């Protein structure tokens, strides 16, 4: 019986200390990724330094699947800037361009946005009754982008099975590799 189990289990021939080492390595990879992300958040000042464009409202500047790098530097907002903002009660941030701005004496802003590929401004997207964005709604300012790189994220979001499959394959690969 023990022999049968040994043949079925691909990990049985690996020493326990090596399995432990592989698990530690995997943890290091995850921790490194988290550290990079958090470091990027600090560097950019934005809660979400990298976002994937999900809709076509900014065609032809951005297409679905483009990856945007965001920054939340101090400094005035000005018309024409592309910002990412979040509406209360809605999950997904929106990437649009500032169309109109009113700056108060105390430094507060009333901001109105519009997607380049849309015919009307975004008042219809804001919360009911809301006519302006303020600085609080804005989570980042678009500074640069890479085309199409974010398609991986979109595909994995659209097909969750693919995501789990990839994670599973990665885990098996990492744990079963000999060093």
């Amino acid at each position: 019986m023990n022999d049968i189990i040994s043949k079925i289990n691909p990990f049985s021939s690996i020493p326990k200390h090596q399995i432990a080492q592989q698990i530690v390595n995997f943890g290091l990879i995850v921790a490194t990724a988290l550290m990079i992300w958090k470091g990027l958040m600090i560097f950019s000042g934005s809660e979400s330094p990298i976002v994937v464009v999900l809709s076509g409202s900014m065609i032809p500047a951005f297409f679905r699947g483009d990856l945007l790098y965001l920054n939340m530097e101090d400094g005035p907002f000005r018309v024409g800037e592309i910002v990412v903002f979040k509406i209360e009660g809605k999950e997904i941030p929106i990437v649009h361009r500032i169309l109109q701005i009113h700056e108060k004496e105390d430094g507060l802003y009333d901001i109105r946005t519009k997607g380049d590929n849309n015919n009307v401004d975004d008042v219809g997207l804001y919360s009911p009754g809301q006519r302006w964005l303020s600085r609080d709604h804005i989570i980042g300012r678009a500074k640069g982008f890479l085309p199409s790189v974010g398609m991986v994220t979109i595909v994995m979001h659209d097909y969750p099975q693919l995501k789990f499959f990839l994670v599973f394959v990665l885990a098996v690969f990492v744990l079963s590799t000999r060093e």
Partner: protein
Amino acid sequence: MHSLSQRANTIVCFGGIVLVGVLLLNVLSRAFFSDHVDVDIKLNEIHRFNTQRNFEYSFISIDLDANLEPLFNWNTKMLFLYVTAEYRTKQNVLSQVVVWDHILTEKSKANIHEKRLSKYPIINQGLGLKNNTIKLTFNYNVVPISGILTRHQVGTSEFKFPTTYMKEAY
């Protein structure tokens, strides 16, 4: 040492590094292209200027001469052109409103000579436009195929709103 997975890993990593290097060179290559453009912008006409309850609105048109051909290089995907009206009132230390915008994707159409351009109204928060000086500015946003987004401002002119509202002529 030379397993398939090892070789695939090396190829992927090296390929990634090369791509990043090429991207960096692409971004740096911008320095070798002139970004000087000549722009002349001025007011054509104030078509409407009036008030409703507690805000003002106005329709204006502008004349625009601009040669933007130098801005197109191998990394230029499109230019977003926009003209802003900028002013100050008691209620706001700065207001900026887009009065016209345009997406330019072809170099062949980058030499612009247009009259009476108009697209968006100026809608002021509150009152304060009468006899106010408005600064018109031409701006463009360079959207590359990949890399850093930049915005530039070039060419300004000023005009003044009249001291009285215009009668509506429908």
